C-alpha cells in the first residue's frame, strides 16, 4: 500500500541476536557465494542508495545502511559507506560484517581497491541495485571497475531471496505482532470516542513503544479514502479504517483493524478470495483476479488503485506485485502482504493479511 514515507528510519534499532544469530548471516553468505559460482561470478556488488536503503544489502549485512557490500567467492563480505565515518561506531554494533570502510569520495575506487586486495584483478562482477544508483555513482563504478565485466545480477538475487528463511519468517511474525498491537490500540482509542486521526497517532505511538524501527500508517481521517497523518484535527468518521505497516529489525508486516474488514464485508470477501487462490506456481495476476472478482464492480477500480498487495520481507513491495495480468508465479516459502481497500460505497471496508505461500495453499502468518 502506498503510504507517506517517514523522513528516515529512526525507531528502535538493534541487532537482536536471538532472532538473527551471526551464523544466520554466515549461512546466507555461503548460499549467495554458491549462487555466484553457479553464475560464473568472481565477485558481487550489492548497492543501496543512501537516501532509501532497500533489503538487498540488509539481507546479507543485517544492517540497512546506504552504500555497498562486496561479496567474493569465499570469505566474509566487506561493506562500504559514503561519508566521513561518524556513524561507523554504532553501525559496527548492528552488523556481523567486520570489514567496514567509509570514504568521502565515490565508492567505486574503494571497491576496486578491495577487489585488488583480495587478488581479484579481473573477471565477472555481478551488480545488484542498478536502479538504486545515481548516474554519477554508476559512472564512477563503471570507470573504476573498467577492467571487469559487469553483470546485472539483480533479478537472480531477488529470486534467490524470495522464499523466506525460517528466521526471516520469525522476524516477520515479530513485526506482525507489533502491527496488530498498533491497530488494536488505535481501535481502542476510536472506540473510546477518539477521532480517526487520534486512532492513527495512537497506533504509531504503540508501535514505537513496542520496538518498531519504521512505520507507515493510513486511516480514513477525512471522508472515505485513506490518508496519512498530516496535522491535528479531522472529524470523527462513522467508522474507522486503519492500516499500518511495521518494520522491526528490517522486516515488514502490515495489519488493519479487524472491525474494518469483517469476513462479510466487501474487503473481507475479496481478501478471503485472494487467500483461497494462493498456492505454489499460481500467477500473481490470478490471485489479484480472484480478489477483484469477489468485489462489487463499482468498488474494483478504487481497490485496484490502492493495490492488492505484494510479496513482503525486507520491504512491503517485493516482487511479485499482486496485480491483474502479472504472470510472475508464486513460490513456496514466499510471504505475501495482501490487502483490499473497498473504501467506496456506503459501507467502506479494509482488510489485510500476511500469508505464507505453501505448496497447495496459502497459510496465514500469525503474530507471535
Amino acid at each position, binding site marked *: 500500500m*502506498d*503510504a*507517506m*514515507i*517517514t*523522513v*528516515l*528510519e*529512526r*525507531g*528502535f*534499532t*538493534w541487532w537482536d541476536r536471538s532472532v538473527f544469530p551471526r551464523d544466520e548471516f554466515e549461512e546466507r553468505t555461503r548460499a549467495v557465494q554458491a549462487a555466484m559460482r553457479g553464475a560464473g561470478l568472481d565477485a558481487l556488488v550489492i548497492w543501496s542508495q543512501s*537516501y*532509501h536503503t532497500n533489503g538487498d544489502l540488509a539481507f546479507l549485512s543485517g544492517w540497512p545502511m546506504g552504500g555497498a557490500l562486496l561479496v567474493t567467492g569465499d570469505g566474509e563480505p566487506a561493506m562500504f559507506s559514503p*561519508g*566521513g*565515518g*561518524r*556513524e*561507523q*561506531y*554504532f553501525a559496527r554494533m548492528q552488523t556481523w560484517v567486520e570489514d567496514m570502510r*567509509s570514504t*568521502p569520495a565515490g565508492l567505486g575506487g574503494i571497491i576496486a581497491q578491495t577487489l585488488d586486495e583480495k587478488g581479484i584483478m579481473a573477471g565477472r562482477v555481478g551488480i545488484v541495485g*542498478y*536502479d*538504486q*544508483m*545515481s*548516474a554519477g555513482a*554508476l559512472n564512477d563504478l563503471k570507470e573504476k571497475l573498467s577492467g571487469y565485466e559487469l553483470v546485472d545480477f539483480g533479478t537472480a538475487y531477488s529470486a534467490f531471496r524470495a522464499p523466506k528463511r525460517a528466521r526471516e519468517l520469525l522476524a516477520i511474525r515479530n513485526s506482525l505482532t507489533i502491527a496488530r498491537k498498533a491497530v488494536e490500540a488505535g481501535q481502542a482509542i476510536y472506540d473510546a470516542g477518539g477521532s480517526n486521526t487520534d486512532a492513527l*497517532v495512537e497506533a*504509531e*505511538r504503540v508501535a*514505537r*513503544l513496542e*520496538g518498531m*524501527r519504521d512505520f507507515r500508517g*493510513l486511516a480514513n481521517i*477525512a*471522508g472515505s*479514502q*485513506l*490518508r*496519512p*497523518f*498530516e*496535522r*491535528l*484535527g479531522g472529524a470523527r468518521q462513522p467508522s474507522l479504517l486503519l492500516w499500518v505497516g511495521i518494520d522491526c529489525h528490517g522486516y515488514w508486516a502490515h495489519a488493519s483493524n479487524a472491525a474494518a474488514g469483517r469476513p462479510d464485508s466487501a474487503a473481507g470477501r475479496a481478501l478471503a478470495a485472494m487467500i483461497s487462490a494462493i498456492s505454489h506456481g499460481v500467477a500473481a495476476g490470478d490471485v489479484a483476479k480472484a480478489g477483484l472478482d469477489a468485489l462489487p464492480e463499482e468498488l474494483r*477500480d*478504487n481497490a485496484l*488503485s*490502492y*493495490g492488492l498487495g505484494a510479496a513482503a520481507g525486507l520491504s512491503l513491495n517485493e516482487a511479485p506485485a499482486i496485480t491483474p495480468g502479472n504472470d510472475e508465479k508464486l513460490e513456496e516459502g514466499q510471504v505475501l502482504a495482501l490487502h483490499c*481497500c473497498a*473504501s467506496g460505497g456506503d459501507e467502506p471496508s479494509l482488510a489485510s493479511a500476511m500469508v505464507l505461500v505453501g505448496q497447495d495453499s496459502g497459510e496465514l502468518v500469525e503474530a507471535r
Partner: protein
Amino acid sequence: MTIVSARDPLRLQSYAARIERTREQMRTAGIDLLIAYGNNRHSFIAMNPGWWLTGFKQVGEHIAVLLPIDDEPLFIITPKWDRERAEERSAIPNVIACEPAEFLDTVKAEIAGRGWARARTAVSGGLQMPRYLRESWPAALGQEPTNADQMMSDLAKVRDDWSLKCTMAAVEIAEKGYARLLETARPGMMEHHVAGELEAYVRSLGAEDNFQLLSASQHNRSVHMPTNRVLQQGDILLGEITPAVEGEYIQICRTAVFGKPTALQQEKFAMLDEALRSGMAAARPGVSTADVVAAMNEPIIRAGYEKYTVPPYMRTRGHSMSLGSMDPEISTFSGHILVKGSVFVMHPNQYIPDTGYFMCGEPVIITDEGAKPLTSRMGELGSIL
C-alpha cells in the same frame, strides 16, 4: 501554533509568489517549461521540488508540476486514490491523478496535448528521482532537458512568509518536545521508549514528521538511533529533534545529563556553545560556509581539539533545511556563499575525548547582523534530576 487550512491566505499568496519567482528564474535561464518532480520520500536530506511548488506531500511514487512560462501550471499526482487529498491540499488547482505505472506516459501526453512539446524544458527532481526515470526523460520529451536542481534549491533557500510560519511552528514544537523530554526521561527507561514517547508528543502538537536521533551513555561516541539501552544516572542524553510542519523541517540539537553536570562537562559544553555563537556571528550574507566553519572551529582548536574537528569525530557543522534538502552544508567544501533570509541548523556537534560526544545546535536565519536563532532559548547543558 496550529496550521490547519490549505486555503490560508498567506499560504496561497506564498505559493503564488513561488510560481512567479520560479518563472522569473526560468526566463533568466531560458527555460520554457519546468518539470518539478517529487517522490514520496519527503525528507530534509533530499529535495522535493514538486512539494515546494504545491504544498502537497504525496503518498504515491511520483508527482510532477508542469510549469510553463506563460500558461497555467498542471499538477500530476499518483496514485488515483489520493486525488481528493491532492485537490484539497495543492496550491495548484489543476490536478490530474494517474497510477504510478502511467506516470511518464501521462506527463508526456499532457505536454503534447497542451502544445508544450517544443518548449525548452528543464527537470528538477534532485537525488531521489529514480535513475530509470531520469534516463527516460530525453526519450519521453524528445529532447535532453536541462537540470534545474540548483535553480530550485537556490529559490527555496530564501524563505517566504509561509515557509517561515511553518518553520516557526516546527521550532515551537521542537522546543516543547525537548522540554517534555527533560520531564519524562528517567533512569531505568530504555532509549527507544523515551524516543517513542517524544515522537508521540510532537505528533500530538501537530508535527506530521520528526527525524530524531536519541541516545545516551556515560561517554557517547556519537549520537545514534534509539536502542534498548537502559538509561542510567550519569548518562549523557543526546537528542537531535527535527519536527516537520507542512513539510518544513527544523532541527534542534540538545545535550542533558542525568544528574548534575560536572565542572568538566560544563566547561566542554561551554566551549561548543562558544563555537556555535562564533559561527553564528560570522554567518552573514556574502560569507562563505568555509569561513563559518573556520569561525566555529576556532574556539575548539584553541582549546587543543583540532584533531576532533573533522570526521569521524563529527559529521558536519550544519546544513540548510530548505526544500526538504540539506543543500548546502556548512562545510569547508560546499563552496556556498550565505544568502540573507536562508535558514540553517548550525551545530558544532562533536566528540570530545574528555566527556564524549556533545550536541549543541540551533536553527538560525541569516541576517545582516549574523545568524539569528529561531528558538526562544538557545540550548544549554541540561540536567535531569
